[in-house]
């Protein structure tokens, strides 16, 4: 199974480009959706408890000034050994709640991520400082050291391989209807939003500081790490605080979509670095690794390490798209199977038609036995599904069912068989009502991407024609007449069959122009095997838009170009 290799053991993978993630972060930042200010003063109260104030507290800026001033005086008093003065200042510091150990007063730049070559389990998250200062008190009685953080970058590794989507937490977060979906499937569209991704990144251990990527003011790295660790100890423990890293964000509320045919039940993450066209931002991917039907994710060492970034398979890699969604061909075949079932049902619902066997090696056989007085007509329908192909000019997949018909007519006279003749779609001889040479019929389906993860199914029917397999002019005259009178019935029936099939499919596909009902159609039951236009095939349709459905035969996968395009609805 090549598909399993391509997708590193997973059933489905959604690959989102590095540029898209960074662009979306920038959007969140620009629109002030993620909090840009990172301001906090942390210290101890008089009775030794941790406390902090943030830039949202009134007098924050003044506190910093006062703190710096008093520490300066304390330092001076200590240096000059003016101990009574020193003692007074220390008391005052406690009284005025100025016993801080560190302080941040900064404005952040948009966060940025980058993927690491040959490392699929980690990525860099870079927090840039647009401006601001870090205030750090090395010792209790020393002056404050001030670091100018303008244009500094604090980068750390986020171990995404360990990220897990926690089901219980999700149920708590989700609304009523979404909760149901989560319980059933384990995942909601919400988990695939940029906001969720961002929160996931932020949950990482911040101390995973990377020196090579970071640019900090000289001599500040120790102060920085201590202050940042303290900062998180202070703020993260406060569960009501939405600010995990300096950036605050709310999970985006997305209304639950219908359960998709391919609904993921587990989610893991990895990255794929790609330097195609020397544009790592464009082709490197963040992978959402998904399993279907509660199958356990693979546990091999190579699980999730994709041989190649899936974005390299993108058909449209313009600014309109953001990545590639893929599913193993094997799983996609489930959908094709449902089409087979559908085709089968349209035939078996016809009056008098019996299924000999359903699709076996892409072939289905049906029979019909008819009797007129003593004469018999036996019809065999052989429906063959031809190999699935990508649509030649436009996007989409073409599916073709070949319809072959074989008819055996046995003519009796006074219960004695007087002759047996056959007609078929391969027959070459015309006569009387049989006006055309035999030809196979074709039922063509074109699968294209529709709205929000649905399919748009187009169909076309080429009518089959049957003709005599032997030259009827060589038949005895009397016999021929008998035969032709039998065939009158037969021909009209074949026309009805075709009409019935066309009508049924048209009705099922919700297409206009289905002609009026006939007796045969009424007998066709409602078929919900395939209510194509309304059925959600693909997951995440509320967050991603899909286009350019195609099979990547070499990789044994089915792929789409995707766009991060959340649905806006009431």
């Amino acid at each position: 199974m090549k598909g399993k290799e391509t997708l590193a053991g997973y059933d489905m993978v959604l690959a989102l480009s590095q540029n898209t993630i960074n662009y979306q972060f920038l959007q969140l930042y620009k629109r002030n959706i993620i909090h840009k200010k990172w301001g906090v003063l942390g210290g101890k109260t008089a009775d030794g408890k941790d406390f902090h104030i943030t830039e949202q507290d009134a007098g924050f800026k003044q506190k910093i000034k006062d703190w710096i001033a008093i520490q300066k005086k304390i330092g001076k008093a200590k240096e000059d050994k003016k101990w009574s003065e020193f003692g007074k200042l220390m008391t005052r510091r406690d009284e005025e709640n100025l016993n801080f150990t560190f302080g941040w007063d900064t404005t952040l730049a948009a966060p940025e991520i980058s993927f690491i070559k040959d490392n699929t389990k980690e990525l860099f998250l870079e927090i840039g400082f647009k401006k601001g200062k870090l205030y750090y008190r090395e010792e209790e009685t020393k002056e404050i050291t001030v670091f100018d953080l303008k244009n500094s970058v604090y980068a750390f590794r986020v171990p995404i391989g360990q990220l897990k989507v926690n089901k219980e937490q999700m149920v708590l977060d989700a609304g009523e209807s979404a909760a149901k979906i989560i319980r059933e499937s384990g995942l909601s569209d919400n988990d695939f939003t940029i906001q969720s991704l961002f929160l996931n990144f932020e949950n990482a251990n911040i101390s995973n500081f990377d020196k090579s990527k970071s640019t900090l003011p000289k001599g500040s790295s120790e102060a920085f790490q201590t202050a940042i660790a303290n900062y998180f100890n202070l703020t993260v423990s406060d569960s009501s605080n939405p600010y995990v890293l300096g950036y605050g964000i709310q999970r985006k509320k997305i209304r639950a979509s219908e359960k998709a045919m391919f609904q993921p039940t587990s989610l893991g993450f990895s990255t794929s670095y790609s330097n195609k066209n020397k544009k790592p931002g464009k082709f490197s991917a963040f992978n959402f690794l998904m399993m279907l039907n509660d199958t356990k994710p693979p546990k091999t060492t190579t699980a999730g390490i994709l041989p190649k970034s899936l974005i390299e398979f993108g058909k449209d890699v313009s600014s309109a798209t953001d990545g590639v969604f893929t599913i193993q061909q094997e799983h996609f075949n489930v959908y094709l199977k449902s089409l087979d079932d559908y085709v089968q049902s349209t035939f078996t619902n016809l009056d008098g038609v019996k299924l000999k066997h359903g699709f076996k090696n892409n072939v289905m056989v049906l029979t019909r036995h008819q009797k007129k007085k003593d004469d018999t007509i036996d019809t065999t329908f052989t429906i063959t599904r031809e190999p699935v192909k990508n649509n030649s000019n436009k996007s989409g997949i073409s599916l073709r069912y070949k319809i072959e018909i074989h008819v055996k007519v046995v003519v009796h006279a006074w219960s004695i068989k007087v002759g047996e003749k056959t007609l078929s779609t391969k027959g070459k001889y015309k006569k009387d009502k049989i006006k055309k040479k035999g030809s196979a019929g074709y039922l063509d389906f074109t699968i294209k991407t529709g709205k929000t993860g649905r399919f748009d199914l187009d169909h076309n029917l080429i009518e089959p024609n049957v003709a005599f397999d032997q030259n009827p002019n060589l038949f005895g005259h009397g016999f021929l007449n008998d035969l032709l009178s039998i065939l009158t019935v037969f021909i009209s029936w074949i026309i009805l069959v075709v009409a019935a099939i066309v009508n049924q499919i048209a009705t099922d596909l919700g297409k206009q122009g289905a002609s009026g009902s006939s007796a045969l159609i009424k007998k066709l039951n409602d078929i919900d095997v395939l209510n194509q236009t309304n059925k959600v095939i693909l997951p995440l349709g509320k967050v991603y838009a899909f286009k350019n459905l195609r099979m990547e035969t070499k990789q044994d996968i089915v792929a789409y170009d995707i766009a991060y395009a959340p649905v806006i609805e009431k």
Partner: protein
Amino acid sequence: MKVDPKFQITKDDKVTVDFKSELMQNYFPESAIEAGTTIRSLMVAPEQPFIFCLTKDKQLQGILRSEGSASGWEQLIFSKGEVTSFELEYNTDEDYFQLAKVEDNKVWISDEIPLDSTQFTTLDKSISWSSMEAVNESELINKVSIGAEKVVFGTITKGEDAKYYVADLDELTPKPCTLFENGMKVIQFELGNFQYNDGVFMLYDIGKERSFVFQSFPDERYGKTSKARFDEERNINCFALVESDDANDIVYGAGKNIHQYISGIEEDTVDVIKMPGTFEEIKRIRAARNGDNHTVWSLNEKGLYYQTNQFFDQESQQFITNKWTNPIVMAKDAEQFCCVKGKGIRNRLFAINTKHGSELTQLWQDATTTLWNKNTLTIKGIDSLKEVESYSAHIQFHSNATKTFQGLQVQLSAESNLFVYVNGESYHIGPNHEVSIPLTVSAEFTVICPVKDIASCRIFINADFLQKTVAINLAQQVLEDLEEKITSGDALANAQKQNGKLLVAKGTDSKILNSVAAGIQDMLATAKTMENDAPLKRTSFAIGTINSTIQARGAAASRTFSHQGLTLGDFLHSVWDSAKKAVEFVIEKVKDGIKFVIKIGKQVFNWIVKTLREIGSFIQKIFDTIKVFFKDLFEFLAFLFDWDAIVETKNAFKDFTNEAIICLKDEIKNIRKFVDDTLDKQIEKFSPELVDIPDSLDKIDPSQPSKENNADPKSNWLNSKKSYLHDSSGKPISSQIPTDFTSVFQSFTSQLKDILIKSGEGFKLQMDIIMDGFKKMIQGKMTFLDFLKLLLNKLAGLSLFLVKQLMDLIFVSLDTLISIAQVGLNKKWEIPIITPLYKTVTKSDELTFLDVMCLFVAIPTTILYKIGEGKAPFGEGKTKEEFINRGKTIFQLNLN
């Protein structure tokens, strides 16, 4: 012309105002604007919309509201050939707009058109365009949309998917773009702003469904775009964008419902408001905004719906903002439309229906009364004739002071917003919209207010020379007539229209007629108290058969509103006619107006009305209940021109003049002798003081009608049209006179020049007066003797030599004139209003120069005669004959 203020009338000169308003037919040289598909509009100034649409030939036209122009609208053409698509973008920050059009398979972008410094009336000449093309020639450009910084256009190529291009307005280098879904057919796209990103809103078909999305332009840093999909339970069929005060557009998406999408500020969410109302599939939607007030118009098979977020609360009689009303049908026959919002004209809708003549119509709501008004937009068309029902008012100012009104102005305003014609120029007047009208020596003007029902309001006249504001109730006469004529149900049943037919259909229930008559009298009484502030008794009446159970119940008990939030105007325009049930009224005077409580079935409405206009509308609606519509009331109450009688009079004048001219030729010798004799006598009487005529009087026309005439829009009708007569497609009127005359006049003036050089400049002024008198004499407005007296009076003081020379010239010219007069006078002449009107009246007759002259006399004469005598002047054949025969002796000198 400047007049020395000491010669002008002032407040101390006891000016009296004489006015009269009539419900009457009126005529304008205008034609309706025909338009093809797509309309766009914007307000280029407060209350000044500029509408863009295609002509029937698919040229791009702009229709500009133009105060003080003939029809109020000016047409500008912005393309040479067919335009397949166009769009305009209004930049709110920098206050300019830009046009984009597709012409000749190219995209054309106009330069920036600033609102504050553009002469819009000549924009068609001053506009400049830049163009760009698609990459391949085989691509057909079919759609364009323009934004603040970019322009987008779509192309189709045979057998391929739709494409679109984006270009910076600075560079106009189109770059191809792809959709992020497999959209095959783009239905609508518009540049706009969503969630703080510039981009394209697009509506396209994807498979069998329709998708409405937004995609931003790629950013520079990452080359990525922001995307959003708008998805509701039902497909969105169309959308509209409205600029908001922050950077984002307010988005309206419509299908079975209308949703409003507003980008959150500093938050990720988009505020989605599902507006009240469920529709059959909406096909087209437009929205407009004025501050926080929004209006949405949506079209489907049932008609054009209107809804607003200014919800009229019946309890407080005030608007609640940001609460949407239920949709109501405002027009049944619109196909293409656009809308704007203003202050005095609260809502405006411009619509076209290609099935019914493609006329561009305007539906607008007056902010004061909230009443809706509909009219066809017209442009001046010299050869066209538009008949309108109107209130026409003639206003004159008199003073006994020997000073002039020349150079003074009056200010005209109105109780509620109106579009009126003042001296043939269109203006918007309203409570906060004043128009200054310059007066001439004649100190009079005509206000014509086209109406579609009998309601109208008071107009106010203010001037420095007036002691106080003069209010004119345009509908006064009509209200008085109604009071006098509709005294009872019986009177109503027997009332006859001017053509002798009954006003009310025979067999109408007498009970209903009684209630209608009583209701109208109540309304009229209400109208009176409104004008004179008298107390009003609380009255109530009902029209139609009221279900006794409903009647018994109190108003408070049965309050079920299905039309909440409607203003009175919305109610009368949309709900009343569809109610078709019995209606009960309660009228009572309250502190700030008159309170109307209306009960229709179980619904109870109440509004406080403040103007006569609203009461008039109610009276009209009461008549509507007994199927007496405005057309009927007009035939019942209005002054109708008796064109047959006027043509008859004209024919008499014409025959008279023809006779007179023949006789004049024979009389010339006698006249010449008389002149010579008289001149000698005049010279003897010469006195130098006659030479100096005060400057302030230099324009006074000695032959103008006596000032003792009362103001009357009917007899003054022709006078009110004179501005049109002097303007035939911009050509001076002299060129319209038959050429034979022109050549005589030309030779006359060239010879006159020599005399003028000898006599000096001051003489020219007198000559103008003489020439005018001469023309009047030819036209039959002045007797020949009076003309001669005028002539001699004016020439007194010149040297005898010059006068004799001049008289010779006059007589030579006169002799020539008479020879050709009969030919020349009977030549065809095309002049505005009169020619089309005459052709309409007589069905076919051609109008000659003489006809025109005679008509000018016949129109006021016939009207005045009919008003005075109650019949047409030439009703009987004998009178006419006698009159014509008098023409034979008219020039005979009878100096006794």
